[in-house]
């Protein structure tokens, strides 16, 4: 942290801009890159022979989301992420809804990734397996979450260098799996056969697509790191596009490999894929409830030759990456809550910092508590037979990880939908802010006398993510109840808080976004863009004066 003097002369702490291109990539990768470790098994279990199509559809929507985030994070490099863009584009109440949905995602992030981290470790330590040892699994996940909470309260976080090393190792590892898998075990005929014989029903496909989107969640990290990135307007587009394509490649690779790979059966190969004594196709084995939490590690072990090595380190590497991602949930939720509290969308106690450690301890504790409640709901069917019966009766017997996946998909689809609308609104009503990166495919038009460009990709992305939100509501028994319930509870709290403080409830507080934008560009070191913005403002004023004159 550095200390800078603000407008009033007070010295306020600011985040130091020390993140370079690889660091920016690593921050994003350590969050989004972990998603495929969770998503692969869930999607294979739901979409069966159409899993690669589910990933492709969700991947195309994700490209649109990624481009939207890239443009917005490069234009407004502040740590609020999606919540800030929506607040700025659509106003306070929508900013709150988007931020609250992101908060749901971050709390799920904590639980889901800690859960999966233990699942991956169970590949090496069988005592941690969920099915025969649900209590041990639950206790270890709980301890991990509490440990991360404690580390965040103390203020210890993994460094950019550590993220960089883990991300680099994972990119090399996944590329090696891809290389060996496609060259030595991939059989296009098997892919065709699997897709023809195991094509899912429309309901299952919709379920698969809605789960596939969770493999692409975490772009908030890029915006979160934007406030610490050097020259963000130049660096973010570069690293973001690499990140989007890398993640898309791995998701498509794993899904195609799972459907069309002949499991390795040579010397040193793992036991053949069997469930309850029956030989299974690889995709069905990976999607079964025994393996869906550690699908990437199991798949890697069946890659010819390289699998023997991969079986040893992929569970470990995966669990480290998942733990980083879980930690980013603790960190991200507290920072988003802090930012929302600063914008008067949440009560001021979320801004309270620990006297000794100077961290937002109240936010950290509050959202870790929410994550623990989610963990209890997810673990209940495994821990208690009566609870399992209730889940079977009302929620089609969803298991813990699917319960978390449901809510994760709901939160992501909701917040991303608002980000697309915010992008359109900001393009129309804030055309003067310089955009170093612009999504392609735009329609030029005039709004309030200014020349603007309407983003077609945002509309395509909104339709895509909107359909995923609809799929989530149709197919997810828990997601369609718990997700909207989370939003409604939040909105009631928001209304009570705003009313008690005498703040406008449905309207926004007056804010000077022009001064805010100048400050953002100044603190980010984008002085050329700041000059460009000042010139744009002057030009706009001149045009208005000319228009006013008779």
């Amino acid at each position, binding site marked *: 942290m550095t200390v800078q003097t603000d407008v009033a002369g007070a010295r306020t702490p600011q985040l130091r801009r020390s993140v370079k291109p690889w660091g920016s990539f690593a921050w994003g990768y350590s969050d989004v890159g972990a998603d495929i470790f969770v998503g692969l098994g869930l999607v294979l279990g739901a979409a069966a022979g159409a899993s*690669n*199509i589910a*990933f*492709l559809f969700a991947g195309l929507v994700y490209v649109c989301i990624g481009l939207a985030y890239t443009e917005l994070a490069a234009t407004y490099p502040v740590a609020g992420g999606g919540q800030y863009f929506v607040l700025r584009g659509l106003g306070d109440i929508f900013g709150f809804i988007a931020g609250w949905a992101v908060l749901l995602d971050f709390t799920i992030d904590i639980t889901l990734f800690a859960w999966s981290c233990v699942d991956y470790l169970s590949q090496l330590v069988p005592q941690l397996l969920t099915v025969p040892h649900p209590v041990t699994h639950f206790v270890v996940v709980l301890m991990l979450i509490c440990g991360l909470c404690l580390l965040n309260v103390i203020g210890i976080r993994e460094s950019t260098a550590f993220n960089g090393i883990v991300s680099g190792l994972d990119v090399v590892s996944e*590329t090696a799996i*891809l*290389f060996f898998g*496609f*060259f030595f075990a*991939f059989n*296009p*005929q098997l*892919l*065709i056969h699997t*897709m*023809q014989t195991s094509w899912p029903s429309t309901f299952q496909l919709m379920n698969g697509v809605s789960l596939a989107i969770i493999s692409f969640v975490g772009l908030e990290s890029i915006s979160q790191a934007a406030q610490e990135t050097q020259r963000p307007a130049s660096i973010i587009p*570069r690293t973001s*596009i*690499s990140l989007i*394509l*890398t993640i*898309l*490649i791995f998701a*498509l*690779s794993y*899904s*195609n490999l799972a459907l*069309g790979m002949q499991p390795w059966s040579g010397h040193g190969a793992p036991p053949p894929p069997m469930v309850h004594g029956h030989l299974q196709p690889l995709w069905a084995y990976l999607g079964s409830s025994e393996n869906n939490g550690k699908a990437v590690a199991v798949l890697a072990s069946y890659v010819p030759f390289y699998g023997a090595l991969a079986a040893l380190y992929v569970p470990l590497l995966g669990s480290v990456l998942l733990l980083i991602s879980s930690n980013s949930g603790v960190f991200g939720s507290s920072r988003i809550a802090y930012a929302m509290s600063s914008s008067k969308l949440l009560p001021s106690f979320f801004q309270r910092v620990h006297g000794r450690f100077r961290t937002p301890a109240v936010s950290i504790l509050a959202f870790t508590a929410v994550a623990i409640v989610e963990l209890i709901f997810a673990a209940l069917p495994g821990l208690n037979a009566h609870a399992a019966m209730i889940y079977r009766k009302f929620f089609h017997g969803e298991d813990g990880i699917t319960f978390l996946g449901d809510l994760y998909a709901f939160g992501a689809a909701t917040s991303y939908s608002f980000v697309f609308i915010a992008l359109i609104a900001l393009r129309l009503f804030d055309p003067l802010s310089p955009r170093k990166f612009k999504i392609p495919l735009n329609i030029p038009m005039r709004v309030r006398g200014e020349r603007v460009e309407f983003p077609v990709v945002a509309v395509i992305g909104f339709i895509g993510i909107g359909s995923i939100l609809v799929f989530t509501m149709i197919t997810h028994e828990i997601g369609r109840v718990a997700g909207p319930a989370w939003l409604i509870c939040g909105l009631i709290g928001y209304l009570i808080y705003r009313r008690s403080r005498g703040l406008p409830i449905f309207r926004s507080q007056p804010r000077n976004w022009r001064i805010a934008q100048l400050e953002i560009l100044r603190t980010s070191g984008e002085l050329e863009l700041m000059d460009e913005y000042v010139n744009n403002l002057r030009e706009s004023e001149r045009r208005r004066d000319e228009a006013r004159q008779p």
Partner: protein
Amino acid sequence: MNQARFVFSFIYVALGIAIIVRLLHFGLHRELFGGVALGAVLIAFGVYRLAFYLRMRAQS
């Protein structure tokens, strides 16, 4: 570091081409569309990175 990135980008392009050629060798089946899309994304990413690497080299 830049050499490693260059090699990686090259591997991605080669892998993308190899996947597409191998899939198309089995004829035009709609089931192979996902695999062809993967090959195309691999090539696009590799070319994007290679172009960036060459641009940086030309500048320095």
